[in-house]
C-alpha cells in the first residue's frame, strides 16, 4: 500500500506542482508572478507526460545492440511541442506585461483596476 504510493512519487510531485502553480496564478496580484505560477502549472503537466513514457526496466529510447526494452519516446516528443507552446505563452505573456507597465506604470492587478475604475 505504502510502497504503491511511494512508487508513484512522480505523480505526487505532479499533483503538488500543479496545485502550487494554480494557487500562485489565483492568489498573486503581481502580473509577472502570475506568469511564473502558470509556468509551474504547465511544468507539472510536462512531468506527467514524461512519467507516463516510463516502461519498467526499459532504457532510453536509443537503438543499441543487445537492448530489447525501451521506454516510450512518444510522450517525450509530444512534450517537446508542449514546451515550445509554453515558451511562446510565457514570451507573449511577459510582452503583454511590459506593455501594461508602459500603459499603466504598474504591474499590480489591484492598482490597474483602481486606475480603470473612474471610466
Amino acid at each position, binding site marked *: 500500500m505504502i510502497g504503491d504510493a511511494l512508487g508513484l512519487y512522480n505523480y505526487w510531485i505532479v499533483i503538488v506542482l500543479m496545485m502550487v502553480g*494554480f494557487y500562485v*496564478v489565483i492568489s498573486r496580484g503581481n*502580473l509577472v508572478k*502570475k506568469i511564473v505560477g*502558470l509556468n509551474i*502549472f*504547465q511544468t507539472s*503537466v510536462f512531468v*506527467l*507526460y514524461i512519467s*507516463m513514457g516510463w516502461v519498467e526496466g526499459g532504457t532510453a529510447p536509443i537503438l543499441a545492440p543487445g537492448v530489447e526494452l525501451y521506454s516510450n519516446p512518444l*510522450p517525450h516528443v*509530444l512534450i517537446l*511541442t*508542449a514546451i515550445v*507552446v509554453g515558451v*511562446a*505563452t510565457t514570451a*507573449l*505573456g511577459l510582452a*503583454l*506585461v511590459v*506593455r*501594461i507597465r508602459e*500603459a*499603466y506604470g504598474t504591474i499590480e492587478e489591484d492598482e*490597474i483596476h483602481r486606475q*480603470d475604475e473612474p471610466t
Partner: protein
Amino acid sequence: MITPHLPVLQVVLPLLAAPVCVLLRNGRLAWLLALVVGWVSLLIAVLLLVRVLDGPPLSYAIGGWAPPWGIEYRIDRLNAFLLVIVATIDAVVLVYARASVEREIDPDRVYLFYAAFLLCFTGLLGIAATGDAFNLFVFLEISSLSSYALIAMGRDRRALTAAYQYLIMGTIGATFILIGVGLAYMVTGTLNMADMADRLVGLTGNRTVRVAFAFLTVGLSLKLALFPLHLWLPNAYAYAPSTVTAFLAATATKVSVYALLRFTFSIFGADVAFEVLPLDLILPPLAILAMFVGSLVAIFQDDVKRMLAYSSVAQIGYIVLGISFASLDGLTAGIVHLFNHALTKGGLFLALGCVFYRLGSVRLKDMRGLGQRMPLAMAAFVVGGLGLIGVPLTAGFVSKWYLVVAALGNGWWPVAVLVLASSLLALVYVWRVVEVVYFQPAPREHSEVREAPLSMVLPTWLLIGASVYFGVDTSVTVGVARSAAAFLLQAPLGAGP
C-alpha cells in the same frame, strides 16, 4: 489531381501565408494576400462539404504516415460544416477589415496584424480538420496565442489587461485539455481520435478515462466561455479591434464547441458523458444560468460591444443546452444555432465596427440619433438584434424553435419555458439600443457623421442578410446540421464507415 490534398491545403494555405505577410512588410499587400487566402479557403471548405455530404468521411495522412501512427486529417459532415462557417466568416470579415483596420491599428503594424489574423484562422481551421487529439491541442494554442496578440492591438489600454486575463485563463484551459489528452493516451496508447474511440469501447468504468474526460470538459468549457467560466470573454470582446471582435465572436467559441462535441460524442461516447459522468445534470443548469445571467448583465451595459459580449455568453448557453439534451433534435438545435449565431453575432459586431469607424466609440450615450446618420449600419444592427431575440423569419428563430422542440421532446417543458423567457431579456437590451439610436435626437457635434464606407457596410449586410435568408430557407442549414447530428449520435468514430 489536387482534390485529394484539399483537407491539408485547407490548413496549410493560411499557415504559409502568415510568414509571407510578415515578409511583405506592407499593410495593403498583406491585406490583399489574406483576402485571397480567405476566399480560396472558403472555396476549399465548400468543396470539402459537398464531397462529404454524399460520401464517406475523407481521411488524409499527413506526410504519407498512415493513421493511427501518423497525424490524420479527417473531414466528416460535422467538421466540414464547421470549416465552411469559419471560412465564410473569415472571407467576409477580411473584405471589411481594410478600412476598419486602417482606422484602428498603427499603420506600421498592419502587416503584423494580418499575419496574426491568418495564424488565428489557421488554428481554428486546424482544430476543425484534425483527427488527432494532440494536434488539436497544438492548433488550439496557435489560434489562442494569436488571438491574445490580436486582442492586445485594441486602441484602449484596457485591451492589454483583457488580453492578459484571456491569456491566463486560456492557458489554464488549454493545459487542462493537455492533461485530458495525456490521460486518455495513458489508457489507450493512441492519439488518433478514431483509434482512441475504438479502444475506449468498454472502458467506461475506468477511472483514468473519467478523469481524462472531466479535464477535457472543463478545459473546453473555459475556451468556449460556458458560464461561469466566461470571465475572460466580455473584456476581450469589448476592447479588441472591431474586426477581431467580429471574427472571434463568430468563430473561436464555436470551434471550441465543436471540440467539445467531438470529444463527447465521437471519442468518449455519450454514455461516458451522460451516464457514467453526470453531464446531463451539470450542463443544463449552467446553460440556463448562462442564458439568464448573460442576458441580464447585458441589459445593464452602457458599452454596446460589452452588451453584445454578454449576449454571446447567453447565446453559448443555448448552444450548450441543445448539446446537453444528447438527442437528435437537441444536437440539431445546438449545431444550427452554432451556425446562425455565428452569422448574427458576426454581423452585429461588424455593424458596431461601422459605428466605431465614424464615432470612435460604441457607448450608448454617443450613439444617440445615429439611425438618421448611419441608416444602413443601424438597420443591420436592428435586424441582427431581432435575430438575437429569435423573431420569426430570422435565423435565431429557427434555432430556438428546434431548441424548444428538443426540450419538449425530452419532456422538459419548464426548460422550453425558460428558453422563451430568456428571449424576452434579449428584447430588453436590443430595445435599449433601438430606443437610443432611433428615438433620441442626434447631438449637434454629430452633424458630420456619415454612413461607413461601402466596403464595411456591404460585408455587414452580407452576414445579416444571410442570417435572414437562413431564417426563411432552413432546408440547407437544418439539413446539414441534422445529418451532422445523426452522424455524431450513430456511433463513436472508429465504428463508422
